[in-house]
């Protein structure tokens, strides 16, 4: 049995007074304090980060974390674009499966606002194929292609997509750690400027700074001692082609579909058992596709279903999605996102989600995507 026993996240946003490693240090100290563990009780660290090498000329971050934590233990960095955090969590789980009685710290962090938007966009493009980069295709551009394809195939409009952002901004207004706390309307989304047609500013997650950390353990005594603890039922990583053009279907992310199927099989639960999910809404279209590819809604249906807002907190739905505000409103410091998603599910399962607490939550799911779908990580947690 592998359990998650603590979570801490920094504020997400434009944190100009803090460096990447200031954020990492805050997240480490925060999660250690919460679990009342000392640095000496940590046996290994997994660090999810994408851009420190590309933007900050900071590599060998593992050694820097050794310096912060004042330990000499195995520390590993994982990179899988925006799924770097989810991938780090997956490796931490595998580490525990191979080693008994250990405590593992998983951190995700990103520093993105030290640079101009063009520089950060170029850095993020490193996770696209060479041909995509040469054509000037940005990540908004790749998701915009998927959006155009989806809207045309199922006869929806940009308005259908807008409801995702409206819902997630409402959730962000309830999360004090979120980058954006402002509620928005469908009209606000539709009036915002285009980033890559048909996606607009308010269809898109922001460029954010932030760090998040969790502690995983398979130490029985520690699990019994901790008041807040959830079990990790499944964490599955699936990869696919880096180029969007090499995929068979442009209206689905196959890696998500496969990771979800494997995760549910391993967790031995059904889709309808999940009451809270954090899904990867880097763009509004991404949540639409995720809801279908994770198996919650049928293919082609999400464009219509999202308008009912059944997945919005307070509407009495059986599945509430992105209570943190999602990437859209909570912010998207890429390496931190996958850990924040898992952390939000932990808060919900342990009754610590305060003014956005969903009632009677037994199972929760986190879904983290890298690139335009080249990596997907699906994690299922249970109380």
């Amino acid at each position: 049995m592998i359990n998650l026993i603590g979570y801490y996240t920094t504020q997400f946003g434009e944190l100009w007074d803090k460096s990447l490693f200031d954020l990492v240090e805050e997240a480490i100290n925060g999660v250690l304090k919460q679990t009342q563990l000392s640095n000496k009780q940590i046996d290994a660290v997994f660090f999810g980060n994408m851009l420190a090498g590309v933007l900050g000329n900071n590599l060998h971050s593992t050694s820097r974390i050794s310096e912060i934590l004042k330990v000499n233990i195995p520390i590993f960095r994982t990179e899988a674009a925006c799924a770097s955090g989810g991938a780090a969590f997956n490796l931490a789980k595998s580490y525990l499966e191979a080693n008994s009685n250990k405590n593992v710290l998983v951190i995700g962090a990103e520093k993105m606002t030290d640079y101009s938007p063009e520089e950060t966009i170029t850095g993020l493009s490193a996770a696209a194929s060479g041909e995509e980069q040469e054509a000037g295709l940005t990540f908004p551009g790749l998701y915009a292609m998927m959006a155009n394809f989806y809207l045309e195939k199922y006869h929806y409009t940009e308005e259908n997509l807008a409801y995702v952002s409206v819902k997630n901004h409402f959730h962000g207004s309830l999360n004090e750690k979120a980058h954006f706390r402002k509620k928005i309307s469908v009209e606000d989304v539709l009036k915002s400027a285009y980033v890559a047609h048909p996606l607009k500013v308010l269809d898109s997650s922001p460029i954010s700074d932030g760090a998040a950390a969790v502690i995983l353990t398979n130490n029985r005594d520690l699990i019994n001692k901790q008041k807040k603890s959830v079990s990790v039922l499944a964490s599955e990583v699936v990869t696919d082609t880096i180029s969007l053009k090499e995929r068979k279907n442009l209206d689905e992310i196959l890696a998500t579909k496969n990771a979800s199927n494997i995760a549910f099989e391993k967790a031995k639960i059904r889709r309808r058992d999940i009451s809270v999910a954090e899904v990867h809404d880097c763009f509004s279209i991404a949540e639409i596709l995720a809801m279908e590819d994770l198996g919650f809604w049928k293919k082609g249906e999400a464009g219509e279903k999202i308008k009912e807002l059944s997945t919005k907190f307070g509407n009495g739905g059986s599945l509430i999605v992105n209570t943190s505000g999602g990437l859209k409103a909570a912010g998207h410091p890429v390496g931190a996102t996958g850990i924040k998603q898992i952390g939000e599910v932990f808060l919900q399962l342990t009754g610590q989600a305060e003014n956005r607490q969903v009632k009677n939550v037994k199972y929760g799911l986190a879904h983290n995507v890298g690139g335009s779908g080249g990596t997907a990580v699906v994690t299922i947690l249970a109380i």
Partner: protein
Amino acid sequence: MISPIKIWRRQKEIRKILGKKGKILVWTKIFTPGTDFKKYAPYPVVMVELENKEKIYGQLVDYEKEDLKTGREVVSVLRKVREPSIDGVIAYGVKFKPL
């Protein structure tokens, strides 16, 4: 980073896909580009299926608004694709124009 060697290596591939006809599978128009493409924004990018079923990306040039749609027939042409690298070598690549 773009280096003259990478540009040279890519050129050998580009010549094989010039003058090819195909149809637009999907399109977008980029308003917020990366550093090397800032000067060209906004610009449309299309995914094209060539007659041999191979798929290629490229920007659409010499176009009218109504050309930006699924199924439009296009042909691949040689164009400058980004700002010259620090060494001054100009990167040429594939773009498409409507037929």
